[in-house]
């Protein structure tokens, strides 16, 4: 029963969605819409899945005074403070995007700099890898690096200053050879996705239940 019912649910919903794609007539048209709404609602709950284990593991760390427990305090405190600000904002304005609210204050001055800077680090990591690891050791890697160099120069204004044909060359690479290969790749990916979806609906593929 632990596997049969989920497999039946997957089969049923998958088939309904495929069939209603072709048959607009009632009651099928409405049935599809109802399932889509349900999907949207249920999917929202997955956002919460990580929260529990996050809180639990950090609380445990604090209780046990495990190494690095003060950072666990930071996690929990940040969580509770933001939750409080959010609940307050919601209760007073019913608007979590209200720019003057305490909740948006946390967003603007904490979430944004933290998240954005985390990704800005990557620029440095790329610079270091560019110097230390990106090597033209094979024909393939050489082609890749040469194309990358043309694109990197052609896609910024300084490229036109160096050679006025560079932006045009860059556009051409993007629109013809790179597009052609990407098309081949994405046709392959689409076929893989279709095969996978079919196997899932037919119950052949069950790794998602693990």
């Amino acid at each position: 029963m632990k596997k049969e019912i989920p497999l039946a649910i997957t089969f049923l919903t998958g088939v309904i969605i495929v069939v209603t794609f072709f048959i607009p007539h009632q009651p099928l048209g409405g049935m599809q819409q109802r399932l889509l709404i349900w999907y949207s609602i249920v999917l929202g709950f997955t956002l919460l899945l990580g929260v529990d284990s996050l809180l639990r593991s950090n609380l445990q760390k604090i209780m046990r005074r495990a190494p690095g427990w003060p950072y666990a305090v930071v996690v929990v405190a940040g969580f509770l403070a933001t939750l409080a600000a959010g609940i307050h904002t919601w209760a007073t304005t019913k608007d979590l995007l209200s720019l003057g609210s305490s909740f948006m204050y946390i967003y603007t001055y904490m979430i944004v700099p933290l998240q954005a800077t985390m990704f800005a680090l990557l620029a440095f990591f790329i610079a270091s890898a560019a110097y230390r690891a990106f090597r033209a050791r094979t024909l393939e890697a050489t082609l890749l690096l040469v194309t990358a160099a043309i694109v990197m120069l052609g896609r910024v204004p300084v490229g036109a200053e160096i050679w006025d044909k560079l932006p045009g060359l860059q556009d051409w690479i993007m629109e013809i050879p790179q597009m052609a290969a990407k098309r081949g790749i994405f046709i392959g990916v689409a076929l893989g996705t279709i095969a996978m979806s079919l196997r899932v609906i037919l119950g052949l593929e069950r790794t998602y239940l693990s």
Partner: protein
Amino acid sequence: MMHIIGTWIAAGLTLAIFSFLYKDNPFYKFAEHLYVGVSAAFAILYTWAFDVWPMLVEPMFYGRGAASAADRWILLVPMLFGLLMLSRWFPKIGWLSRWAIALTVGIAAGLGITGQIQGILLPQVAGTLVPLTSLDNVLMVVGVISTLVYFYFSIAQKGAVKVGSRLGMIFIMVAFGASFGYTVMARISLLIGRLYFLAYDWLHLVR
């Protein structure tokens, strides 16, 4: 005043994350953990404000957007599935979450089949059907075909297949080179964004 304090907080956090470049240190760890905690709270609040409240509570209890009583109460079904999703929090009944996962996986797979055919396969095939009246068209068709040959596994790579596959490899490398260049560009842009913030919003060095 609040704005100035906020900017200083933001600048402090930005520098704390950047300090990782020197080496891993407590400032970085503090900032990183703060991010984890704060964004977890966001997940809860947004689920409430943009999912549970408008899609479950309002229609069920206030009848907003629901045409009939049946429309209202049938929402108990997705609500139940949503709660089942959270059964993972309790190891003993954790297996119940599979029901909810099965629902989302089934719908996504159902949408995926026709979506990939209608959204990618057919239009991309149509886009490739061009008369070979220009060099660009020839290159494009050859590029698509040889890339497909490269990813064709049912035949040994000998003779014409080998040539096609090598050609495919060249196109693929050009494509990856282009992605490489664009990705580098993107990462630099993010750095520019952060340094702009430090120079402009925080230190007021630029006007």
